[in-house]
């Protein structure tokens, strides 16, 4: 089972990686802002799968951090694009 969970984490990370490269190309600031959002969901999924694979559930705390900070970073990016 850990092998399967690692594989699932690898797959989701691959999806995040491909999505990131697409999003960062833009063209609009709103596109690029999605980079933070993508890591908010995809990053949490990778983390939780890793937590299950290794059995260290304290990693779930990091998931809460990612959710809070991804939202903050996305709002901050939009604020910057807005002000300019």
């Amino acid at each position, binding site marked *: 089972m850990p092998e399967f969970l690692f594989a699932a984490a690898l797959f989701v990370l691959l999806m995040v990686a491909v999505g990131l490269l697409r999003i960062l190309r833009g063209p609009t600031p709103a596109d690029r802002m999605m980079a933070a959002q993508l890591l908010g969901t995809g990053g949490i999924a990778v983390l939780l799968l890793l937590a299950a694979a290794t059995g260290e559930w304290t990693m779930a*705390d990091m998931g809460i951090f990612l959710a809070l900070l991804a939202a903050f970073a996305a709002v901050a990016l939009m604020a910057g694009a807005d002000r300019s």
Partner: protein
Amino acid sequence: MSLGLDLLLAALMLGLAGWTVLGRDMFAAIAAFIAYGLLLGIVWVRVGALDVALTEAAVGGGVTGGLLIAAWARLRATAMVERKAGAGLAVLAALASLGVAVLLAAVVLHLPQPAPTLVPEAMANLAPTGLGNPVSATLMAWRALDTLLEKLVLLLALLGIWSVAPDAAWGARPAASVDRDGALTFLAQFLPPVGVVVGIYTVWTSADAPGGAFQGGTILAAMWLLAVRAGLADLPRVASRWLRLALVAGPAVFLAVGLAGFVLAGHFLAYPEAVAKPLIVLIEAPMILSIGVSLALMVAGPPVPKGDA
């Protein structure tokens, strides 16, 4: 399978780093840097350093990202971004960075096998601190002086930012760009209460589990800035008395406890064994406030004259 995951993680980090450094569009570079910070948090989780992971996600992905965006918006307003650095300077910076990278790589590759470690000693001496997390014990007990100086550096950085304010602005508020969008208002209403609980929990749990005042304080700063952005909270005037108190509360209590160490335990920053843990909690409680307030005000930037805000 886990090797494949680590390799992909490493490749992605290198790609994002390259994008941040080489990208022509500065906004995209900042977005890539934020993604880099959040992802680096996952890398730290992979190497088993959850304390560092929380710090990296909070500081690297959250607050530094906010700082860069604020700086970028300010530069654009003054058209400084258009002025590119000369080729000579760019080459010099690239060479210096390359030199540091090569040196670091050389050091890591030449570490003795097995690498020197203080882990057994740390674990053996954990009990007198009353803490269960050796990272917290290092930060708050064995290397408390470093931690204290780190907090003072934070205050100095804030003073540096304030010192670029024009005379007319001194004592006024930093500029806040407010967006009264309905969805943003809702986000700024429900996220900060959750964030405040998570921030305080992070400090509280750091005695025995990964966490700490820096991580918790950073979350508080992010939540405050979110509320400011939605127009639900105001930034304080930099001359405000309570603001000054909040900024110095953490370092002041830390210093007071440190000085008390002379009397109670024989030297600076030593804790008497019986009350080590309560003292550490006493230091961390005001510290989370000071860290949160100073980080938020660093991102908010220098005060602006009344009417320009």
